[in-house]
């Protein structure tokens, strides 16, 4: 089996803070990590490799420093890594990103294409289904479990608000994986030792045969009109009171608001 996993390097958003004076993000010192949903997807791929035999290729689109997560993927068990990077991809929204990735993925053979459900810096959950559409693949999103019959059919569990759906799909297909689907393994020390001795393939515009009009800022139907720090609401009254008094205050306020 051939598996390709799309991964993304993201800032650890739990570590991001806003500069209250300028309303801009303070990104200095914020660690870059492999997106958690993608990491669970990679774990799923490596488990399938161990169980059924497979080659696992990881691909990321991003700036040159995204190389770091490909090394991490090697140390987790990936066999091949591709860094898709080109100035012409910059400024892409999800659709333009999907065009570039789909262009690259179109050059690869696979039975299963895995992406994370969504990335923690954007939380859009769009790139997976958009790639599936551009490559005319069946998609199963919100994947929480998957099994393979060893021949060509995957049985998939897709999480919903009420429970889950069980679906079947034949290879090749695309799944978007929840971070809770698998607990990613730790990088292997041996894999770490070898990670920087292995080759990361650099692909750019020339390799993917996608019209420039579909790429980057130019190929993005959506544009950022403005970005701003969330306006904080005026704080209300804060009381320092002993528990008896506090209860009195809460009850009178709830009565005022007709809640009780």
């Amino acid at each position, binding site marked *: 089996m051939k598996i390709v996993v799309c991964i993304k390097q993201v800032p650890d958003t739990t570590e991001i803070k806003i500069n209250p004076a300028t309303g801009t993000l303070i990104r200095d010192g914020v660690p870059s990590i492999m997106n958690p949903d993608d990491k669970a997807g990679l774990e799923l791929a490596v488990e399938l490799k161990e169980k059924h035999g497979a080659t696992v290729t990881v691909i990321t689109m991003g700036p040159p420093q995204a190389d770091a997560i490909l090394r991490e993927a090697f140390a987790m068990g990936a066999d091949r890594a591709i860094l898709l990077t080109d100035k012409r991809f910059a400024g892409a929204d999800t659709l333009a990103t999907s065009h570039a990735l789909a262009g690259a993925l179109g050059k690869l053979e696979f039975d299963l294409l895995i992406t994370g459900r969504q990335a923690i810096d954007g939380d859009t959950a769009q790139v997976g289904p958009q790639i599936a559409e551009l490559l005319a693949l069946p998609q199963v999103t919100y994947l929480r479990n998957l099994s393979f019959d060893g021949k060509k059919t995957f049985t998939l569990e897709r999480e919903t608000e009420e429970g889950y759906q069980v679906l079947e799909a034949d290879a090749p297909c695309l799944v978007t994986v929840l971070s809770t689907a698998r607990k990613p*393994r*730790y990088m292997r*020390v*041996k894999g770490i030792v070898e990670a*920087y001795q292995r080759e990361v393939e650099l692909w750019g515009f020339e390799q993917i045969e996608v019209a420039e009009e579909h790429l980057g800022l130019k190929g993005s139907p959506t544009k950022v009109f403005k970005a701003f720090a969330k306006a904080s609401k005026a704080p209300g009254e804060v009381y320092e009171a002993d528990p008896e008094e506090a209860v009195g205050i809460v009850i009178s306020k709830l009565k005022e608001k007709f809640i009780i």
Partner: protein
Amino acid sequence: MDFNLSKTQILFRQMIQEFALKEVKPLAAEIDEMERFPKETVEKMGPIGLMGIPIPMKYGGSGADTLLYAMAVEELSRVCATTGVIVSAHTSLCAVPILEYGSEEQKMKYLPKLASGEWLGAFGLTEPNAGTDASAQQTTAVPDGDDFIINGSKIFITNAEYAHVYVVMAMTDKSKGTKGITAFIVEKGTPGFSIGKKEKKMGIRGSATCELIFENCRVPRANQLGKTGEGFGLAMKTLDGGRIGIAAQALGIAQGALSETVKYVKERKQFGKPLSAFQNTQFQLADMETRIQAARWLVYRAAMLKDQKVNYSSEAAMAKLFAAEVAMEVTTRAVQCHGGYGYTREYPVERMMRDAKITEIYEGTSEVQRMVIAAKLLK
């Protein structure tokens, strides 16, 4: 000269820090309190390759260098010194001497299982009457046909209760003094070999420190490690390497105590402001950080020298001497910065201070390290 970590080292540190934080730290207080050996942690470390870091890949190891190994012990000890010493004793004192002195058969037999963590390793040198004066060995090994018969006992043996493989020193020729000592590989379950009483310790309480008892214990000649009469040299060289592990453990303990203190002084308020706003606190932190950084470079340098296959005895001794004293000083100051809470088990610095003390004692006391360092100067 390059004082920067390589990309490989940065990637490794990312992994080991995450592992320590998520898998090791949550158990640290409990295994200390209960004096419980963290078997589950050893089982998790095996598949990752943490039980065979400096063992070559052809023997099932991770094929990394001593510096990566020292960083592992440092980061594990930062959250749990018990886990640090389990890895250090297993690797430095059992797997590495088999790698460096074993025959090809011995390496093929023992290293893959040690490196995978399936088997745990231990080392037996210290005896009731042979501590710092390790040459006063009373355990004997007498040849008998294809075997040696070992009699005697060893004390304070780290990992003893859970190990499968022991590197043990015994007198094969009393008349020759230190030149009459030979090393053996003893397996768990060998008839005549048993585990004695478990020590109740001040710190590193999760590590199983026990007595080894040999009563007419029959060990095949094939298990002799290195040449006859060269066991004392083997033990001393092994301890040189072990000191890097213990120095890394001390460094980790100190770093852990400092990290906890930085967190605490930002949260804790007295006189209407956080402790971190007081200059005394700031100066304490600055002193701790400076000493830790100095210790770190001594430890890393000793590790690098070992990999360069040059004599590093003195550097390993300096690293251990200094890092152990830094650990003791930093943890003591950390407890002081925590005030009354620091003296309770609410906060980990209490445990860290108890754990730090052993690093000044085992694998050569600080006094022994000074002897090693001075001996080289006066040669």
